[in-house]
């Protein structure tokens, strides 16, 4: 029996195991050409290099733009990890056919860890609390509030936490990916149980790490402000964008890659569409919960978050977010038909990814505006280059990883039921 072999060190970063597609039935493997993922990858890398020019031109703007793009990719990956975990814990059978796509997406964690280098280099510009003078009582910049938070918000502890998050996420993804790919070569009946057990401890660990990562990466940009629901807000965005990315990758595999015909059916798209629909509502529920409690309380250190986002043109971003992240997609995805007409669903995936990026841009960029005073809302070309760069890079790399193995876990005991699945 064939063994699952580890990739060489450099390839390990993007795809930890040597290709196993030759063991699979031809119907289950990638049928398209390598042009698809190479083009996406090339476009992504080119745009990211273009954004590096921004580093030279306007370093502060670049760091903020980069953290938006990077967090965008990170949240999509977190959503994919969560979808993999709930697939296993609930013993779902409909999503067996879908599973390889979120699994491949989770292997972005090591790549994103490497790509966090610009953020580490830009910490001084990004994170106000890294400034030493804030903690010196004799200094005019002494900040009592931040001094009180110093036990948590300090550079060594922050770095240690980031390292811990990425180690945990990578370990979880690696374990699930390894079990899944081993199943292709060896239909060991104990594998689903191992996957389920991993998911059982993985879900609480995922919840805590995601919440704290959202505080550390995005909430810490505005260190005076705090919101206890922020972790859930980011989680909602992660689930939202990951379900859209899965649909987009499946459409790319089928329409441009000519694969999975008759395997990944309209029924699977329909159920993924339901996730997308549900997550617009869940996101709105969480976003509104935060807003309404702030509105009622009217406490300055809380409402400052919205004050920045209701002036200097940012109010248009806030209103756009409400309409294009919730109201319109909710109404569009409400009828059954729009989840089953694939061109409509395909357009909605693009919409979802753009608006999720816009959401993170809305969280991070007003902070840049306040600290470094561009004075008005808008989009820097560096932000757009970073956002699109990360998006194309993400899609290309995930497709590269996907095509090395079978696109479906055909030895999963629930695989046949997944093929026959009918969405109600």
């Amino acid at each position, binding site marked *: 029996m064939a063994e699952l072999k580890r990739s060489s060190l450099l390839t390990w970063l993007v795809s930890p195991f040597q290709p196993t597609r030759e063991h699979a039935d031809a119907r289950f493997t990638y049928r398209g050409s390598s042009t698809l993922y190479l083009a996406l990858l090339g476009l992504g890398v080119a745009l990211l290099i273009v954004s590096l020019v921004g580093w030279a031109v306007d370093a502060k703007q670049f760091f903020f733009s980069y953290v938006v793009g990077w967090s965008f990719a990170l949240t999509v990956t977190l959503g994919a990890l969560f979808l993999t975990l709930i697939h296993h814990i609930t013993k779902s059978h409909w999503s067996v056919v879908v599973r390889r796509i979120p699994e491949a997406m989770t292997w972005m964690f090591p790549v994103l860890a490497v790509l966090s280098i610009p953020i580490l280099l830009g910490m001084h510009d990004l994170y106000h609390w890294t400034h030493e003078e804030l903690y010196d009582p004799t200094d005019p910049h002494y900040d009592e509030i931040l001094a009180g938070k110093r036990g948590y918000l300090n550079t060594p502890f922050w770095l240690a936490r980031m390292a811990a998050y990425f180690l945990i996420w990578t370990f979880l993804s690696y374990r699930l990916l390894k079990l899944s790919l081993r199943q292709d070569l060896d239909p060991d009946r104990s594998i689903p149980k191992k996957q389920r057990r991993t998911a059982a401890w993985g879900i609480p660990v995922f919840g805590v790490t995601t919440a704290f990562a959202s505080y550390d990466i995005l909430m810490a940009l505005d260190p005076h402000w705090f919101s206890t629901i922020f972790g859930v807000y980011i989680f909602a965005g992660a689930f939202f964008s990951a379900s859209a990315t899965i649909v987009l990758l499946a459409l790319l595999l089928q329409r441009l890659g000519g694969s999975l015909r008759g395997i990944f059916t309209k029924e699977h798209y329909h159920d993924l569409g339901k996730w997308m629909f549900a997550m617009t509502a869940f996101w709105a529920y969480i976003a*509104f919960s935060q*807003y*309404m409690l702030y*509105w*009622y309380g009217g406490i300055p250190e809380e409402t400052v978050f919205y004050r920045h986002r209701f002036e200097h043109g940012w109010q248009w971003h806030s209103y756009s977010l409400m309409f294009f992240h919730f109201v319109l997609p909710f109404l569009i995805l*409400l*009828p*059954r038909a729009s989840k089953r007409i694939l061109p409509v669903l395909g357009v909605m995936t693009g919409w979802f990814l753009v608006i999720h990026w816009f959401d993170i841009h809305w969280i991070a960029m007003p902070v840049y505006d306040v600290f470094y005073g561009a004075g008005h809302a808008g989009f820097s070309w560096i932000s757009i280059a970073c956002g699109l760069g990360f998006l194309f890079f993400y899609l290309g790399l995930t497709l590269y990883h996907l095509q090395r193995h079978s696109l479906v876990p055909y030895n999963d005991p629930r695989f046949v039921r997944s093929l026959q699945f*009918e969405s109600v």
Partner: protein
Amino acid sequence: MPNLLTSLFREIKATMGIFEPGGDQTYGLLAEFSDPGALYHAAQDVRQAGYKRFDTHSPFPIHGMDRAMGLGQSKLGIIVFFGGTVVGCALGIWMQWWTSAVDYPINISGKPFYSVWPAMPIIFELTILFSALVAVAGMLALNGLPRPYNPLFYSERFRKATDDGFFLHIAASDPEFDLDATRDFLGEIGALHVEVLEDQGTTTSAAPPAAETPPEPTPSVA
């Protein structure tokens, strides 16, 4: 004109599974099948034979039966959206605006009399409440429920539909219906037993009574 209305009314009732008896009070034929699979295929055959007014009865939902019967997509979603969601949402907005800003405005810690943000939870709740109520009411209406009288209840055998019986009923009002031809057809597609139902409360067995087994054991009453 009354005729047109009557026939329209009959058509609507037929979509709810309430069929008119034929000319001589014949309500239709009731056929029993051995298992869910047999009933599923029978429904497909009946639909392909051109019958429109028929229904299936089983102790539990059978996956894919709606497609086998050619029922199409339920209209409930549209009814719920316009009759419940939109109405509930509008009512929630109007009610709170009218009570707190028009009819009896009270200044509470300087907050605006009416603002959409604190009103949102109640708008949301009323939207959900009305959608849910209209969904239940619409479901009942589309199914023609509650329906305390149904000629099918005259059949002793039909009691098994809540236990282990799988039944298909073709209404006499169906344009394709012909008592003998339809009975033969039901036998051909594998019915175990076919009986004629009359709307007046009498049933006549159409199959030879040889295969009849005694009715269910009567519970011993002390």
